[in-house]
């Protein structure tokens, strides 16, 4: 395989995803409105009710809307990851996945390219959200916007890989709404996105344990620390590890020799 072939194929996959995104404007606005509702309505109410003490990476007291911003950024990326899942199930049902899988390119390369394509879209959404949030008073360190970029790429890939793994198990497009309920909301609520973990521990010990085993918590913390020009090494290790596991399982699921795609085809043929 010539390197230029891989470059052109990668560009083609990212370009197609961007084109699809630009033509689905409602998808962009939905992705933006959701976190803004949380920030402007939910956080505004809690700003008065919930005090955030000084915890790393914060050097001083912060308002609740500042605290919740990394969680909302991660939420955008999680939704986008699930959108990747939806998009892949749609492609499979519409047949365009077959076009991708019958090209002379390794499966892992195709999946990683799709991941990057999804992350590119999610970064566009995240930075638009941060711009709007800035005008609502959420100010982050100026260099934090840039420093968070590697963290956002990593977390975006982890959620994309999770979406890809989920897509390999969804048989029909109609099942996506169920997945939304069973994956997105528990992950988001049982994490440090809305409340600090120490506060969670005070409220409920078992909920605290759920939170510390939730990869979403570590994605939020990785982004939170990156905004303040710090690296949370534990979060980095967990996010990278989860990315490797989710991606490995996705490649396996889409492998023509072993994957569950084959078993599903068999089930359909036997029916």
């Amino acid at each position, binding site marked *: 395989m010539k390197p230029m072939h891989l470059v052109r194929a990668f560009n083609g996959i990212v370009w*197609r995803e961007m084109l699809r995104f630009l033509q689905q404007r409602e998808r962009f606005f939905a992705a933006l409105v959701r976190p803004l509702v949380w920030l402007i309505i939910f956080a505004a109410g809690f700003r008065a009710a919930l005090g955030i003490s000084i915890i790393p990476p914060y050097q001083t007291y912060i308002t609740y809307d500042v605290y919740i911003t990394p969680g909302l950024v991660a939420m955008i990326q999680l939704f986008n990851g699930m959108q990747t899942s939806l998009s892949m199930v749609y492609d499979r049902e*519409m047949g365009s996945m*077959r076009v991708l*899988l*019958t090209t002379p390119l390794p499966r892992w390369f195709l999946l990683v390219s799709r991941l990057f394509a999804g992350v590119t879209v999610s970064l566009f959404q995240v930075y638009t959200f941060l711009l709007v949030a800035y005008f609502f008073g959420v100010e982050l360190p100026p260099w934090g916007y840039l420093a968070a970029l590697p963290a956002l790429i990593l977390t975006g890939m982890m959620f994309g890989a999770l979406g890809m793994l989920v897509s390999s198990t969804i048989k029909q497009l109609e099942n996506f709404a169920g997945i939304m309920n069973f994956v997105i909301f528990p992950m988001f609520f049982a994490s440090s996105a809305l409340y600090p973990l120490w506060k969670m521990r005070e409220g409920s010990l078992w909920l605290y344990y759920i939170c510390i085993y939730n990869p979403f918590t570590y994605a939020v913390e990785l982004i939170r620390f990156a905004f303040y020009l710090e690296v949370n090494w534990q979060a980095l290790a967990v996010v990278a590890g989860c990315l490797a596991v989710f991606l490995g399982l996705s490649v396996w699921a889409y492998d023509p020799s072993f*994957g569950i795609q084959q078993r599903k*085809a068999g089930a359909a*043929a036997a029916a």
Partner: protein
Amino acid sequence: MKGCVEPAYQRKVGRRVVDGPIQGYLWGKKPGPRRPPGPPRKIAMQKETPKSEARTPVLTVKNVSYYYGSKQALDDVSFEVFPGKVTALLGPNGAGKTTLFSLITRLFDAPTGRIEIVGRSAAELGSRALEPLGVVFQQPTLDLDLTVKQNLRYFAALRGLARKDADERMMRALDALDMAERVNERVRDLNGGHRRRVEIARGILHSPKLLLLDEPTVGLDVPTRTAIVRHIHELARADNVGVLWATHLFDEIEPDDDLLVLNKGRIVARGTAKDVVAETGAGDLGGAFRLLIGGDTEEDIAA
């Protein structure tokens, strides 16, 4: 060379190279010219292949069996597809055509037997073996929200073609299929026949040596089907492309096409279409097919 019927189906596929103009008659209909006289129109851009290479198969399927759990989908299937020839694959519902196409396109791997595309095995080379392969699926696979050009450029990128080269090939392929003027239209705005033509243009964009067509004319009206059949036969002859065409429509098969009849996972007849008909003693291809699969209703035939 005679066609053959089970149990003598182990015999070699009969074939001969056809260089002349299209004979162009549908079975049971009076022969007649379909297009003005003249040389066949070039569709793709491959150079002519020397005659000495013409007998090297572009697809070899050897002793392939496949099971879904305990259910056998393919039973020791072997055949070859040669360059410059259209090989029709006929079979009723559940015969194993889709499984066979999935194995050839490596949507999943064959655990037994061997599949080679232009002499290269996917089991050994992985996805790289799919390089000389073009596919037109039965299911529509174009992105409806993108234009014809965007769809084809996306596919060209997946095949590693540079933008300028891709655009040139795209215009030639679309022109050959009378679709050049629709290049900037969204696929959603095209009718079924035009979408099919775009899919075929995409399938030949990278000048494949082997073209797989999985019932590409399903749901199309007769004039569109006839035009597509003509294009594919021209393509095979003019550019020396080997074509494997799964179909259940007998009028898409020309007498000199190679024919494989698949029933319950086994190849029950093969040879040139006219020889298979002659061997069964049936009056036409439909009759021969019914005899071979032991059924006589439309449901048996519909794929």
